[in-house]
């Protein structure tokens, strides 16, 4: 390892820690972008399919069918990246799994069932378009939607347990008793799950709508493209305000239950009352630098009282205090997530106002331009939200029980593994985008509408 890299590591950190964290962050960050397609895109597909069948809407059916093809591709990439994650849990963090597998593993075991069901029914749905009868075919999509949500719940339960571990008895560093239900329904489970599930729907909705916004901008203003846009955008626009209310609730839950993480979120070195909300800004040598301050706001939001007292980083023992740069990362990530939400909320309200008045999209091209990038904004919110959760937990992997530096593997040279993962995932990412572009070009060139079943053709 080179000399510069040594500088990045603080004293006493195992050499494998940095590459292992980078790799975990990179592969999780990759996987999570595909998750909305497995969890929420299938729901959009079902709406389009239902509309197509119920109202005899050929455009909607065509959308559903094409979305199923996209889902097939992205589901495959999601599944393989998820498989790598499962290996990584063992390869990078053997001491997490070895010591806590008996508790931490349980939600993953539950997740197994749902991903299995999801994989089975998504295959049936995708490959059943031509030969199965329309309504039975439609219903085979339902388990995909349900299993997607339940699978998300399970995997988020595992994450919640790392943040607020419960349901275990530890003696001499060994887990000697486990209460599986308390592990699964840990104290972070509900809010993390609801927030993540909504995030999946918001991200999928804006991303899909963005594709059709580009088409509308280029003048393809036919019914097919409008339907595609409206279906996806409506789902995202309705859920965005809900997501913000939930986000607000989550923040308060973190204030009460994870004070260390909350101190990082608020960039608060010392415990005090009348805490201002700091927008932007970083921690340098334990002092807050730069950034704009709104007096009393953090106290007001967290404790409903401008004088509310908030615990700062000083409540954390010196051994477990995160370094300044991690605190700054958490704080900035939080600010970016909230800023993205505000942008998305603005766009949703714009759409809502226009729809309420004229039953139509806003006329401005700026609306479509904004909608065209809204998916990327939502992805940024998703990624930064996870950075808040994961980096905000540092230096702990399991809060209070296992430090990240004690969880990391001691064998091999993780830099090589990281290099391989970077190379392969980058290639797969680029190829995925390439293939999607190709599919779109093909569809555009297609003269005959490829309606699978429906009004034109007897089933």
């Amino acid at each position: 390892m080179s000399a510069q890299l040594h500088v990045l590591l603080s004293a006493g950190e195992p050499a494998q820690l940095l590459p292992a964290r980078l790799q975990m962050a990179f592969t999780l960050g990759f996987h999570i972008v595909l998750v909305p397609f497995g969890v929420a895109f299938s729901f959009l597909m079902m709406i389009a399919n239902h509309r197509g069948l119920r109202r005899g809407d050929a455009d909607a059916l065509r959308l559903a069918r094409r979305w199923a093809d996209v889902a097939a591709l992205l589901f495959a990439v999601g599944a393989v990246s998820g498989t790598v994650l499962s290996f990584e849990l063992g390869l990078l963090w053997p001491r997490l799994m070895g010591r806590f597998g008996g508790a931490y593993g349980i939600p993953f075991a539950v997740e197994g069932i749902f991903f299995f069901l999801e994989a089975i029914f998504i295959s049936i749905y995708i490959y059943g378009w031509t030969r199965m009868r329309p309504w039975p075919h439609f219903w085979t999509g339902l388990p995909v939607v349900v299993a997607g949500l339940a699978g998300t719940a399970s995997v988020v339960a595992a994450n919640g347990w790392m943040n607020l571990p419960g349901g275990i008895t530890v003696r001499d560093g060994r887990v000697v008793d486990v209460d599986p239900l308390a592990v699964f329904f840990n104290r972070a489970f509900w809010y993390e799950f609801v927030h993540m599930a909504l995030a999946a729907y918001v991200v999928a909705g804006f991303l899909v709508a963005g594709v059709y916004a580009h088409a509308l901008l280029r003048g393809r203003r036919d019914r097919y493209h409008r339907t595609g846009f409206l279906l996806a955008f409506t789902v995202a626009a309705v859920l965005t305000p809900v997501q913000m209310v939930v986000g607000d609730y989550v923040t308060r839950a973190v204030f009460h239950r994870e004070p260390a993480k909350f101190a990082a979120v608020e960039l608060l070195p010392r415990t005090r009352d009348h805490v201002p909300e700091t927008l932007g800004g970083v921690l340098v040598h334990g002092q807050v630098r730069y950034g704009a301050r709104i007096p009393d706001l953090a106290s007001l939001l967290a404790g409903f009282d401008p004088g509310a007292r908030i615990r700062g980083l000083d409540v954390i023992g010196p051994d477990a205090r995160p370094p300044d740069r991690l605190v700054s990362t958490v704080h900035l990530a939080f600010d970016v997530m909230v800023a993205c939400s505000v942008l998305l909320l603005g766009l949703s309200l714009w759409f809502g106002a226009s729809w309420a008045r004229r039953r139509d999209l806003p006329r401005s091209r700026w609306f479509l331009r904004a909608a065209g990038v809204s998916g990327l904004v939502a992805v940024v919110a998703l990624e930064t939200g996870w950075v808040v959760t994961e980096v905000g937990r540092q230096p702990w992997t399991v809060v209070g029980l296992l430090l990240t530096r004690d969880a990391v593997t001691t064998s091999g040279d993780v830099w090589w593994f990281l290099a391989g993962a970077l190379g392969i995932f980058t290639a797969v990412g680029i190829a995925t985008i390439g293939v999607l572009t190709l599919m779109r070009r093909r569809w555009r060139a297609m003269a005959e509408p490829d309606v699978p079943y429906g009004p034109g053709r007897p089933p």
Partner: protein
Amino acid sequence: MSDAIAVVLFVGVVLYTLFGGADFGAGFWDLTAGGAARGREARTLLDRALGPVWEANHVWLIYCLVVMWTAFPPAFAAIMSTLYLPLGLAAFGIVLRGSGFAFRKMLVGTAEQPAAGAVFAVSSVVTPFFLGAVAGAVASGRVPGDALGSWLTPTSVLAGTLAVAVCAYLAATNLTVEARLRRQPALERYFRRRARLAAVVAGALSLAGLAVVRADAPRLGDRLLGAALPLVLASAGLGLAALVLLRHAVPPRPAQVLAAAAVGALAAGWGVAQYPYLLGTHLTVRAAASPYPTLVAVAVVFGAAVLLCVPSLALLYVLEQRGELEESPGA
């Protein structure tokens, strides 16, 4: 209880060998199908047969990992820490294989398609080799051990090679059935021939393997010819019966079932030979097991999985075999 969960784990291993194996093996036949023109028919058949089921086939691997780390965490941690090289390479192989397969389907008629196909085919052969090598290292009691010495051994190399052969064998019998279902007699003959070849190779490797294992890993060798002998013999018998059926122009379905049973018996033989140890002769199933409530939770999850997934999986395979699931229109 821990024994029951060890069985649950091993059921997963056997099912992954069968379903995942047939899946990997299809990639082997893809790799060996010859140039673009010559191999077209075989590749089309294998694409169609694999398309709807490959993801489900690979969930068994996740199942094995998850049961292992939940029910037997110290064994899982030790395996992962020792065998990180073959496991890491297998993980990369799985990514390349899955995405190569998905891309190739969508890339029909483009210049990139052969590249995606090649990635799929090569990683389909390499991945089972590494997984087999991991199995060999665990079976021969070399975990924990050092990074290379634990799996660059005669037993592991043999197990890896055997894994590739077994995958090819399972896949060829499956594809014979698929060709029959689709009424493609030429392809049926094509895969029937290859199934016979793979059967002979896999059988020979197993026999040679017994000799290698006896020399390299005496305990495993003794156990395979001791407690596990009935299963080893059953495997040999079933394999021979399958071979006989494959030689005659009878419907291929019984041969497929016999072949799968032969492979399943062999894998189960490994499990019996290991018992009561998970690792070497130092970590027993009982000592590695998680606290009792966790094991109960795993058993409950397993029960729920059987209730929910088995009928769904049956539906998938039935629809697939009835031809209700056809080529996706994306291409």
